[in-house]
């Protein structure tokens, strides 16, 4: 045990600490050693900071379109101006390519637009309550939505960076809402199944087996397409989370059931039973605390699958619909291969998806290993 949670302190002292540490402390010490998991966690924290403060990190209105600025390439920031740290971008001027007559944008090297961190831009409400106009990035002496394009623009001339910030908010929260729903279903059904056993267990297990042997994407597509076309963005958002979690709870139920079955045989449960504890008290006071860490691990590992599901559905145009912005909605623009070849920056949201999914997997693996010292 002691060597598993080797701490900087030497020998005896460390052992003493281990002996008195709570279960959560032991888990934290083990988790800390898992470098990939810690890295994944940090990345996720960054993602959720962006999700919470999306309007702070976005410097332009994500819906403001302008056909004049359609499909502009990402614009590099120049950090050093005349030997000093003073970030700026060149202003862009649109011209026609004399050969193809395509509209192209060339940097106008005579005009520099300075960039300020935490500068003033469009007014918005931070966290929905605090009115402010400070943004992470802002330009001085010009409108950000007309001069700053860190990741280029989409086909309608909307700024991809700002849209990506808002998309992160949608996609990262849809995972949480949906996993919360799946968790409720999974814990209740898995718990009932594992604790009571018998016929109920058989029925629930068969339902899980059936659900798992159905190809999910066609089913989701069918259900999502059946949503009324006149529903609002919020209604569709919740409908999609419900559809995804209705089928996604099975894995969580499986984990919970397995834990219940193995814990039911433990001495402390029998002791509680002999002391005359009620069923509810045995389950919630004695059993749940000892496997809650496993549930957390399973939950973390379930989120990436949900994020991918939402992205796939929205990518097909059956999930969230514009004006909602999510990673899947952004990737819809990348569906057209010809457009993608001309403007590869449309694929940038794909990397957000992959990084987020990887980070969740790393963190989930770390928690799982930390939760189970016997593995």
């Amino acid at each position, binding site marked *: 045990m002691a060597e598993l949670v080797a701490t900087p302190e030497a020998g005896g002292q460390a052992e003493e600490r281990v002996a008195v540490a709570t279960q959560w402390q032991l888990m934290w010490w083990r988790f800390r050693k898992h470098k990939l998991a810690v890295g994944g966690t940090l990345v996720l924290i960054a993602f959720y900071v962006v999700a919470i403060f999306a309007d702070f990190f976005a410097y332009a209105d994500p819906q403001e379109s302008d056909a004049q600025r359609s499909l502009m390439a990402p614009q590099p920031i120049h950090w050093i101006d005349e030997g000093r740290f003073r970030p700026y971008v060149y202003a862009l001027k649109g011209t026609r390519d004399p050969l193809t007559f395509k509209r192209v944008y060339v940097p106008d090297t005579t005009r520099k637009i300075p960039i300020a961190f935490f500068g003033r831009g469009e007014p918005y409400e931070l966290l929905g309550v605090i009115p402010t106009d400070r943004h992470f990035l802002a330009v001085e002496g010009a409108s950000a939505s007309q001069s700053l394009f860190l990741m280029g623009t989409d086909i309608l001339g909307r700024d991809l960076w700002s849209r990506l910030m808002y998309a992160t908010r949608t996609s990262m929260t849809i995972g949480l809402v949906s996993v919360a729903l799946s968790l409720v279903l999974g814990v209740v059904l898995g718990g009932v199944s594992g604790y009571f056993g018998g016929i109920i267990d058989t029925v629930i297990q068969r339902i899980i087996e059936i659900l798992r042997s159905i*190809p999910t994407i066609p089913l989701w597509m069918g259900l999502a397409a059946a949503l009324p076309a006149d529903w609002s963005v919020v209604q569709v958002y919740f409908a999609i989370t419900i559809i995804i979690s209705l089928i996604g709870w099975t894995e969580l139920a499986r984990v919970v059931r397995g834990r219940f079955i193995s814990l039911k045989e433990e001495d402390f449960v029998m002791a509680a039973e002999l002391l005359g504890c009620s069923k509810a008290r045995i389950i919630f006071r004695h059993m749940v605390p000892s496997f809650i860490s496993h549930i957390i691990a399973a939950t973390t590992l379930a989120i990436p699958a949900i994020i991918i599901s939402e992205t796939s559905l929205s990518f097909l145009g059956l999930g969230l619909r514009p004006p909602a912005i999510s990673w899947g909605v952004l990737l819809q623009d990348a569906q057209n291969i010809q457009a993608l070849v001309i403007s*590869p920056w449309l694929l940038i949201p794909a990397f957000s998806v992959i990084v987020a999914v990887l980070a969740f997997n790393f963190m989930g693996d770390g928690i799982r290993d930390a939760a189970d010292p016997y593995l």
Partner: protein
Amino acid sequence: MISYIVRRLLLAVLTIWAISVLSFMIIHLPPGDYVTSYIASMSASGSAVSEGEATALREQLGLDKPITVQYAKWMGLMLQGNFGMAMEWGRPVSDVIGDRLTLTMVISVAAILFTWALALPIGIYSAVYPYSFLDYVFTFVGFIGLAFPGFLLALIVMYVGFAWFGANVGGLFSPDFIEAPWSIAKMWDLTKHLPIPAVVLGVAGTAQLIRIMRSNLLDELRKPYVMTARARGLSEYRVIMRYPVRVALNPFVSTIGYLLPYIVSGSIIVSLVLSLPTVGPLLLKALIAQDMFLAGTIVLLLGVMTVIGTFISDLLLMWVDPRIRLGRQ
């Protein structure tokens, strides 16, 4: 053995029933019924449907009856192989789906074969040489593979094909063969086009299987009988392949039951990106046109095919694993 087969068969029938209910739900969820959308699609193409015709059609299809009767009637039609008309196409559903369903299954099976062919040797290697350089490389690649949704991988493959090689890597046939009747040459053409979709679809599953195989075999290799075999001077190849791999293979085979639905599911969306002539693009089109009859039928048939595939893999498992064959669970 018999009881195992019967149990699996019962479960398969139950699953098919559940899928049929869900498909029926998909058909009936949107407002309006088949006839309203039929009228809409007919008037869009210029020909009107009279009130009398509509009522007659409703009666013929039993749409005026309670929902349970409708379901029974629909199931009856399905069992007879009468899948109704695909409105947009003006042809029977079975005509529209036929080849595409077969191709969906061909691609899925190819993806599974690829998954196995790659996961088995890599899994064995990683378990025999754990924490070696290559093991770390495979683990890392596996993690990335898990994180890549199939359709994104397909997008990137298409992009690379277009931007760097100037070639369209999508599709399942060369242009000459698309309309051609089935022949040896067309089969060969299909075989040449299969690897890209199979790889794109199989990557995530491969990553998962490598991890399963590695941990199973690692557990097995630590057991005393392996040491005994070594002590007796068996060749390393025999020590590993003869028993531990066979035992570790068992959970490997049983995962096919989960792998198939997963891959079929992924093939739908990957097909759209790679423009493969499977049921995927058809399903999407049907859903967008609100042709729920066609969509429901596709979901149903896809589900049924998957269940049959899973059942076959169960039989395969029985053949591989004597413990199941001899009746002990």
